[in-house]
């Protein structure tokens, strides 16, 4: 059998030709290896963030202060939010699967700027390290080190972020560096998708995941600079006190919110669009038929990304923004829901007259349709200005975005992990275990967040470490849900790790999929991917009676059907 990209020595490096396996990984420019390294790093941060989440849930299990005081709790949700958003979910799917499978899907040997990709990865690591140092306050004069993370919430609203004594500046710098990494990833992918598609592959022959990545890359590229500059202005403000955002000096804190959300709203679509891409891969493969409405799905990704830039103000409905602006933003916000709805109906229609195979990737995908529909529809609720006056900054909005992020992005990330696990590792995971893990997660998320809609509707504000006793029951159900979901998670990762170590070897195309990433000469794929670049004169999901229509000779990559 030929060598795979995981074997020692099978990599190109940014600098020289290192001998040791360790340096071969550190210096690798291979898109697949970089993707794996992203996953490993994120996974670590992820568990820190889940741990802080668990700490919050335990604290909230009963009213009153249990074991966290107000300040610690504030730092906990800030840490949770910052890690989850900036370190994990924003780079998440693009950095992992965008890197690993996107070039394979378009028949490219690597991304357009492999060295830049390597540099970006290390920039990301650097950003993570800066974020971690911001956990500590170094008090040089007194020689103490205080554990003192920023306590502003992940939104860094001025003037609080300008006044608080904690280490906000370092956190802002970290967010800026991570933003740079995100921009460079997006740039790299955009050029890759424009330039390196296999001959014959037009935009409308690309797999839908590539469309998702493409739309996302535009958001990374054009939205991130705005938050970069916002953070720079905040740092200037903090050191020089110009008053850009500080009301005591004449500045307007609402302007900060505008700038922050100009980035951070598109950022939520940046999270979800590649996830939708994964859904669009899984639905046809596990229905064993062509996808319904390819073009509308592709174009709706693009329009979600486009409209997504125009609606940031729905986070400012109670901020003191003018009523005219509220009306405009509310109106525009609804236009995001329509293409999303179209996607959903297309996916469902894909199941019609297919053969539904309920393997775990499909289970995750179907589960996500339920959870994301809840997350999305409650988003529509708070896009109504009147409703949002009541619900803004309550647990209703917290539940909305956890359903959207956890029940949308993270669930689909997991679907992708199962789907591409054989591709990446060359092994099969343990299916029964994977199913149990799914059900635990699915039950868990609903127990965890559904009660919070009710609590929020009744008036439970977010970022409260103590609450009025009426809300106790909701927090308790939610606490139980957190334990259920986390046990599901542990089971799932245990399954992955043990299968990678000692799982059954995977055949070349275990799911009968039609997209190019599965047509490599070895499993896992070799360095530089396909043996030859194929000529693409077929659609991405061509099935015939449940079997892939297009067949290749994997050595010459010529069609043999």
């Amino acid at each position, binding site marked *: 059998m030929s060598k795979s990209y995981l074997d020692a020595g099978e990599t190109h490096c940014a600098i020289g030709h290192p001998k040791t396996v360790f340096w071969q990984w550190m210096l690798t420019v291979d898109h697949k290896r970089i993707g794996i390294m992203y996953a490993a790093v994120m996974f670590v941060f992820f568990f820190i963030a889940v741990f802080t989440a668990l700490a919050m849930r335990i604290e909230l299990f009963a009213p009153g202060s249990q074991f966290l005081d*107000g*300040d610690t709790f*504030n730092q906990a949700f800030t840490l949770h939010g910052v890690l989850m958003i900036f370190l994990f979910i924003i780079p998440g799917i693009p950095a992992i699967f965008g890197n690993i499978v996107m070039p394979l899907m378009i028949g490219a040997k690597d991304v357009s700027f492999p060295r830049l990709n390597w540099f970006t990865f290390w920039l990301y690591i650097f950003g993570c390290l800066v974020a971690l140092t911001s956990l500590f306050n170094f008090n040089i004069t007194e020689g103490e080190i205080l554990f003192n993370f920023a306590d502003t*919430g992940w939104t860094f*609203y001025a*003037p*609080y972020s300008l*006044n*608080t004594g904690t280490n906000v500046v370092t956190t802002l710098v970290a967010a800026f560096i991570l933003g740079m990494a995100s921009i460079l990833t997006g740039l790299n992918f955009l050029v890759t998708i424009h330039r390196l598609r296999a001959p014959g592959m037009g935009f409308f022959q690309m797999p839908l995941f590539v469309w998702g990545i493409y739309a996302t890359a535009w958001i990374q590229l054009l939205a991130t600079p705005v938050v970069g500059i916002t953070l720079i202005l905040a740092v200037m403000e903090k050191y020089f006190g110009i008053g850009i955002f500080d*009301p*005591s000096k004449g500045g*307007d*804190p*609402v302007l900060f919110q505008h700038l922050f959300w100009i980035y951070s709203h598109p950022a939520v679509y940046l999270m979800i669009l590649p996830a939708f891409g994964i859904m669009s891969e899984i639905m046809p493969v596990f229905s*064993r*038929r*062509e996808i*319904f*409405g*390819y073009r*509308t799905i592709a174009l709706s990704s693009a329009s979600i990304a486009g409209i997504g830039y125009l609606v940031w103000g729905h986070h400012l409905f*109670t*901020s*003191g923004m003018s*009523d005219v602006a509220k*009306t405009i933003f509310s109106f525009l916000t609804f236009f995001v*829901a*329509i293409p999303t*709805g*179209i996607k959903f*109906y297309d996916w*469902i*229609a894909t199941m*019609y*007259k297919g*053969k*539904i195979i309920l393997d775990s990737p499909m289970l995750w995908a*179907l589960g996500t*349709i*339920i959870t994301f529909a809840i997350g999305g*529809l409650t988003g529509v*609720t708070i*896009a*109504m*200005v*009147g*409703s949002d*006056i*009541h619900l*803004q*900054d309550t647990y209703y909005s917290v539940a909305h975005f956890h359903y959207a992020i956890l029940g949308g992005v993270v669930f689909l990330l997991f679907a992708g992990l199962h789907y591409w696990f054989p591709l990446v590792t060359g092994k099969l995971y343990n299916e029964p275990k994977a199913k149990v893990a799914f059900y635990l997660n699915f039950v868990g998320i609903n127990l965890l967040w559904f009660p919070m809609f009710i609590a929020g509707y*009744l*008036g439970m*504000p977010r*970022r*409260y470490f*103590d609450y*009025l006793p009426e809300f106790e029951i909701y927090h308790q159900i939610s606490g139980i849900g957190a334990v259920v979901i986390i046990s599901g998670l542990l089971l799932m990762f245990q399954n992955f790790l043990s299968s990678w170590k000692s799982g059954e070897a995977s055949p070349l195309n275990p799911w009968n999929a039609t997209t190019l990433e599965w047509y490599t000469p070895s499993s896992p794929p070799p360095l530089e991917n396909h043996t030859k670049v194929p000529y693409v004169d077929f659609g991405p999901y061509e*099935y015939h*009676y449940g079997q892939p229509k297009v067949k290749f000779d994997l050595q010459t990559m010529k069609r043999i059907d």
Partner: protein
Amino acid sequence: MLEGFNTSGSIIAEHIGFALEMNLWLSIVLFLSVVGPMLYLAWKYRADKVKDEDIENVTHHLLLEITWTTIPTIMMFTFFYYGYTSMVTARTMPPANESIIIAVEGKKWSWNHTYPANANGFVHKTAELYAPANKNVILEMTAPLNDVIHSYFVPAFRMKEDVVPGRITKQWFNANEGTYDIECAEYCGTSHAYMLSKINIIPQADYDAWISSQDSKPAAFATGASKGQELFESNGCNGCHSVTDDSILIGPSLMGIAKGKTAQYLKDAIINPNKDIADGFSAMMPATKMSDEDIAEVYSYIATAAVAKGAAIIESNGCMGCHTTDGTPSAGPSFKGMGTLDAGYIKDAILAPNKDIAEGFSPIMPATTMSDDEIAEVTKYLKAL
């Protein structure tokens, strides 16, 4: 307690409540329109029921596609419309001459309400809001310039608007009688979760009577609390300082400061708080203007607050029949000097007095049932003597 939520407390609440309800039902319809077919198809075309030859690649259906684009679009416009109209209700201030205008200041971490001057030119300031029933009330809200953003949230009225330093924001309500919670809904730091207060809607007559008086609260709410306590609370001092025990909220506990410090010291701390920062705290206490008389009231409140409750419990349980507070033994030993006893011992002495008899006294003390809280208060009182 979250009070009055279920009454449709205000006009705004009715409008927004309608928008929410309409949204809920339509959302359920939309949800089912997705999840229903999904479950049905997953069951109908399950793998063991479908032969490969029966699979069909249906990729277009114009009519369906138009349907699932237009119907949701119409629904979206409906949502927008009701969201918009209920916003207009909430955001259109009633005419000023038909309303009471109350100034709200939100600061770390308390709400202060300032009423229009009454006929005598007296201006009421309160921590909780009092307003007459079925009357328009406009809140003109702001925060001190060096403070942060807060949000004045009354769940029962479905109303919320940020309180932004440097800006004036407004909201209004017209509500039925009752008591409603105010919460702070914009994250503002350490005691964000405790930035709570209440709106008390009272009959017009009660309100009028109160506003023309100089009482700090309407008659029905008079708790017998001293003026000093009211000042302490309405100025938000209690948000940062405890007086009844030595816990540190934000600033240092003030319990016991009356022992060592004079009223002048308190005055300095209130008027110019950042001149002399107590160890281990940062300069965050806002300066407050207060007259000398008021400061004296606050001082005497602080001096007695810690033990006021304990004293009351001791009095109502008749302990003073046998004990004294001045060190002279009576039927029982004097309370003075008991501060050195440990808490467990005191507890036993109250609940089961005859278990361990103090030397020189006979076993005549009756057992008293008392909650742990009460015992704690008593213990505190004893320690302070």
